[in-house]
């Protein structure tokens, strides 16, 4: 099968083009660096099938980040390159186009965001550009699908042009000449979105806007999540599912082994969805009734901010703060992604330039950034004792995140590279694209999390049955009770935290603890070890040695923070 590569600068819509051509679902956003590894899918060109590969964005053919290195490495393996260029920024895009042409790449150019260019008063003479470059040029709008058919039809016309290799200065002079000959710009008044975009990076207005957006986002996540739980999940589980489970409970006879696995234990003769711990009770209720509503609401809000183009501006505002932690502003984006799930957060660190930065970023995400599943459980269980305790958990985790970053920056040799990042314009998110993105992320949660939750519930029952937890509890009792002030049984939840933290919080909820103890317990649980999915990704991204160092930091800092919290809250 022929291999076709999609290449272009970061944030020109390669992933959107990929979705259009293959019908496959991939995440696209409005900030550079959404794609850090390659995705491939099959597309049809007439009767023929071809393998289409979505390559991470690159500005030229010399690597400055891991993601760019991946892009360049892939160039050798492609038969044809579709070079995606942002029509609103022809000059920047042609930088890569000419470098590709110099390498005698068989290629054609897709001029994306054609509609936005028109709105901005930018007119590009496509025919002239074609003859200047010597390869086909097709204007498209990937988000709406305009021009995609014409692009597919012209793929067979892809060819290599005769372009000499030029030194840097001549290279840009040549691009300047091409742009001047093919593009005309009509002056036009600044739009509201442009003015808002500029205000978002101004020192005072920007911080005000950031605070507003953070408060509104947090409020929206809580509101949507709570509403879904109150209006949909609780009634469904309590009204419909519970009577069914009670009947099943009678049929299986409480006390039997099967009853213990499927229903769990009855609390005051009743099924308790958090405490019963059966496969069909807690095993379903935790992921679907407590976590999924928040996964949904978090990704709706995050998706909106991503597609609107807010995240790079937040990165600008936080650049100074992030430098104190040995990172630059862009590094806030992986931490924000981590609030949904740590796995994509840790994957996103690939765009950072140095191993030092990647180590710091991955470690502080694992320690200080609670995923949506963990947060949902914290709100659900600790929230009952009052918002004050939830606030303590968030405050502590944020402090741990910042202090640890600062600490690592001071002790690790080397310095943090500077921020050099393009700032995309604000764009109104397309509801269709946003909905699809939310759905993909929810589907990933259902596919990957629900089976692990069920498995977790099963293992918990087995280990209790075999008395393993009791033995471990005796052994770790000094640390649990004296250092952290928790009941010794809490160690079982910490161990299950390695599988899934939401299940672990559920187990903590079943223990008889004060609000203070629960606060200490969930904070330690959040910090002390990554769940298995994050662990595997950390290992792949950092390697064994750095993973080992990172894990040591997690254990040490979680115990220190737990002990301190215990001393304060006791």
């Amino acid at each position, binding site marked *: 099968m022929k291999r076709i590569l999609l290449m272009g600068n970061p944030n020109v819509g390669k992933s959107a083009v990929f979705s259009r051509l293959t019908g496959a679902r991939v995440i696209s956003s409005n900030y550079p660096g959404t794609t850090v590894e390659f995705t491939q899918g099959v597309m049809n060109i007439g009767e023929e099938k071809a393998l289409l590969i979505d390559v991470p964005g690159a500005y030229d053919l010399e690597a400055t980040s891991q993601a760019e290195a991946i892009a360049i490495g892939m160039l050798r393996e492609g038969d044809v390159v579709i070079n995606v260029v942002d029509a609103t920024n022809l000059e920047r895009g042609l930088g890569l186009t000419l470098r590709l042409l110099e390498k005698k790449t068989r290629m054609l150019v897709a001029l994306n965001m054609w509609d936005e260019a028109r709105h901005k008063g930018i007119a590009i003479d496509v025919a002239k550009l074609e003859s200047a470059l010597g390869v086909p040029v097709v204007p498209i709008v990937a988000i709406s699908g305009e021009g995609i058919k014409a692009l597919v039809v012209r793929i067979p016309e892809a060819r290599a042009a005769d372009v000499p290799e030029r030194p*840097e200065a001549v290279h840009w002079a040549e691009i300047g000449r091409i742009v001047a000959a093919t593009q005309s710009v009509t002056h036009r008044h600044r739009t509201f979105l442009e003015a808002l975009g500029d205000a978002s990076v101004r*020192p005072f207005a*920007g911080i005000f806007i950031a605070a507003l957006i953070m408060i509104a986002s947090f409020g929206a996540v809580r509101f949507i999540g709570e509403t879904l739980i109150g209006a949909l999940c609780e009634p469904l589980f309590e009204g419909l599912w519970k009577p069914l489970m009670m009947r099943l409970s009678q049929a299986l006879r409480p006390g039997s082994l099967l009853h213990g696995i499927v229903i769990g234990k009855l609390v005051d003769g009743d099924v308790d969805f958090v405490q019963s711990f059966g496969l069909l009770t807690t095993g379903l209720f935790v992921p679907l009734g407590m976590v999924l509503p928040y996964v949904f609401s978090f990704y709706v809000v995050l998706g909106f901010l991503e597609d609107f183009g807010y995240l790079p501006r937040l990165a600008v505002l936080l650049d100074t703060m992030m430098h104190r932690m040995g990172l630059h502003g862009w590094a806030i984006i992986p931490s924000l992604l981590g609030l949904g799930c740590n796995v994509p957060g840790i994957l996103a660190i690939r765009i950072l330039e140095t191993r030092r930065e990647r180590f710091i970023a991955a470690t502080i995400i694992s320690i200080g950034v609670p995923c949506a599943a963990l947060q949902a459980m914290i709100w659900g269980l600790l929230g009952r004792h009052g918002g004050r305790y939830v606030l303590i958990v968030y405050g502590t985790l944020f402090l741990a995140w910042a202090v640890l970053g600062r600490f690592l920056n001071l002790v690790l040799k080397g310095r943090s590279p*500077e921020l050099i990042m393009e700032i995309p314009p604000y764009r109104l998110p397309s509801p269709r694209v946003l909905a699809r993105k939310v759905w993909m992320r929810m589907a990933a949660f259902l596919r990957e999390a629900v089976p692990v939750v069920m498995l977790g519930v099963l293992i918990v029952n087995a280990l209790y049955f075999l008395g393993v937890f009791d033995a471990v509890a005796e052994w770790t009792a000094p640390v649990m009770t004296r250092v952290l002030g928790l009941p010794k049984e809490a160690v079982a939840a910490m161990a299950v935290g390695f599988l899934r933290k939401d299940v672990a919080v559920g187990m903590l909820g079943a223990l008889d603890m004060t609000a203070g103890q629960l606060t200490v317990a969930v904070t330690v649980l959040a910090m002390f070890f990554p769940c298995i999915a994050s662990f595997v990704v950390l290992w792949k991204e950092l390697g064994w040695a750095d993973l080992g160092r990172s894990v040591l930091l997690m254990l040490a800092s979680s115990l220190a923070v737990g002990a301190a919290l215990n001393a304060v809250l006791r």
Partner: protein
Amino acid sequence: MQAHTSLVELNAGQAAEVLKIRGGYGIQRRLQALGIRPGAIVRKVSAALRPGAVVVAAAGGQAALGYGVARKVIVEGRP
């Protein structure tokens, strides 16, 4: 008339011509890709409080440069 300054000293909202970039090959290349190269006219959009990042409009788009990089971009203010 304004003497040669860096992007850090330039006033927000002001346009300027890039004269040179006092940086290594890597930084030069990355800035060039974003439209910041000798001879180019850029406009400073804003700066965060020092030592914060600077946002400039160049080549039809905007780019954020950390303080350390912005200091290395020598420009001449244009009215």
